[in-house]
């Protein structure tokens, strides 16, 4: 494969990943949101495979597989289980309506291009052009955490953000060393498991998983 082709493919996949993040803003039902995340993770797994093939890195292969196992299989299952267990209130309630939220997304994407452009330009790798897209995924994921009341969506936003970061590292340097990558996956997995527990606790204690109601501790 030529660098040109790889570059195109990477861009395409990155667009798709970002699109799925943005989809989280539009999607109302929690199950659909979990699906979006799984799809995005699948795209990233494909992306790492692609780059693994291009760069001939065996480690990156491993990373792709691990990613698939953790983020496409394990975590969506955990989240599905949580959604099912909560039962009620599947409808996620945002602070901002969809239109202004999308507007802010557009703004964040612009910021991301502004910020990452110099990095992308200075980078000789064929994957670098997609860096701003990856970072945009980070920012939009972050924004979803801000905008959504439901704990599950907040977690999804966090996972999307995490995905964006993974993607960013992947595109910039073909990923960080294998050991670190594995550590990160472990952390993410544990974090999600802990968050799941917390969702149940919150549900038990507050009869709702609207984290906006966690407002007793304030000045």
């Amino acid at each position, binding site marked *: 494969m030529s660098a040109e082709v790889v570059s195109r493919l990477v861009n395409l996949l990155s667009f798709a990943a970002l699109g799925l993040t943005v989809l989280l803003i539009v999607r109302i039902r929690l199950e659909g949101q979990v699906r979006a995340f799984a799809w995005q993770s699948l795209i990233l797994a494909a992306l790492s495979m692609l780059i693994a093939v291009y760069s001939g890195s065996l480690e990156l292969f491993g990373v792709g597989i691990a990613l698939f196992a953790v983020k496409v299989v394990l975590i969506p299952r955990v989240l599905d289980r949580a959604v099912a267990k909560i039962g009620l209130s599947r409808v996620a309630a945002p602070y901002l309506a969809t239109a202004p939220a999308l507007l802010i997304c557009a703004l964040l994407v612009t910021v991301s291009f502004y910020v990452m452009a*110099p990095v992308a330009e200075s980078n000789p790798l064929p994957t670098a052009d997609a860096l701003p897209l990856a970072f945009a995924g980070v920012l939009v994921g972050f924004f979803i955490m801000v905008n959504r009341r439901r704990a599950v969506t907040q977690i999804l936003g966090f996972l999307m953000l995490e995905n964006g970061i993974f993607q960013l590292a992947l595109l910039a340097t073909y990923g960080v060393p294998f050991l670190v990558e594995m550590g990160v996956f472990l952390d993410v997995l544990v974090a999600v498991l802990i968050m799941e527990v917390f969702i149940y606790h919150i549900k038990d204690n507050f009869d709702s998983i609207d984290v906006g109601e966690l407002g007793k501790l304030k000045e």
Partner: protein
Amino acid sequence: MILASLLLIPLAAAGLLALARGRKTMEMLHALASLGTLAAGAALAAQTSSGAPLAAGDLFRADSLSALMVVIVTFLGALAALYAIGYLRAEPDAARPATVRLFFALFHLFIFTMLVAVTTDNLGVMWVAVEGTTLATVFLVNLRRTRASLEAAYKYLILSSVGIALAFIGTSLLYYAGAKAGELAVQWSALHAAAGSLNPEVARLAFVFILVGYGTKAGLAPMHTWLPDAHSEAPAPISALMSGVLLNVGLYAMLRCKIIVDGAAGPEFTNRLLVGMGLLSLLVAAAFLVRQRNYKRMLAYSSVEHMGIVCLGLGFGGYGALFGALFHLVNHALSKSLLFILSGNILLQYHSAEIADVRGLLRAAPWTGALFLAGIVALIGLPPFAPFMSEFLIFRAGLERYPWAAAAALALLVVVFAGMLASVNRMLYGAPPAAIAPGDRLRMWLAPLAANFALLLVLGVSLPAPFEDALRRVLQILGA
């Protein structure tokens, strides 16, 4: 060998404790492990006192800066561990054996993650470990399983995870900058060696992520919002470690990256950011320390303030300020852990964290009261305690380099001083409420705190040569 035992003792202890049965066994194991870790930490400090770093493979490397942090972690860890035994016996919310087991196991896991963070040479592993500290402590924060502790823990988890995630971007960017320089590694030592050839633009960008990311962990405003909740809801020994040690670990991670970024882009950029962050932290802390109603939150906000001061010192730069900043880091750790542990005692006695409910502490519990008073006096920067000296060093240098920032910070310190003094006066003096049974709680378990007190006092009036040399070696790493 030393490194291995340092890391393995707490890890093994965590594993064993998770399986252990019987309260006595657990307590014994817990105490032994803590003291063992402390011994290993001391040995490591002794090993590195020559100035040469101690390495174990590519992954672990302990230089003087690491040694300083290891000593803080293990020393205060042991202190908190001992007190925790007594505290858990007295705390009614933690009576179930499962809770006790969870506490002890996670305690050592927490220590382990912190030790990994400060002894690894790999910036990625450091990141993983720092994230690990969050995961290890989040259940500890929620140990009491109240609504409030749940809320605090959730916020802590979410905010810290997000913050830390951002730090990962910074780490990858550094890695990227390093990779471009031809050194494809996340080894801090390698990056440090190649710092001069890194792309300054990328390095600067990386530092912004690092600052916001690890800054969240270090409790810098405005990323500090989880801190007062988590530190006030956690059980006292954990609050002590979180405020006294964990914040420093966050700062440590940032400092490691700063060294590299400074090598690439010059210190001007990072210094200005740190001064700005420090000032903002002071401002926010000052605002919340005026008429604060909850003493544990007061201590938490004071941590934000002191992290701000350390940041100012790091940002002011130059030998004096950096020396002062490291010195202050130690001092804050000593005084804040002392105070948080005592806050546990106060809570046990008064059954309330509200300042308004606590009166006449000096009469109700003379030892607790006297130590609390000493800790507060130290914390607000009065002689003869060490923070006076470190703050003096920081501000002396600051007034020369960033006079307006330093002057503003001084003014804010006066506000903080006024606010904390007013709160503490109410607690310490006057007559205790009639419903409070007099007498110190857990008196014997407070004995180790004498070490904190003595150190604060000794460092306040003199600068023992070994300590000064240790800081000096650290300063060499910082390039001052």
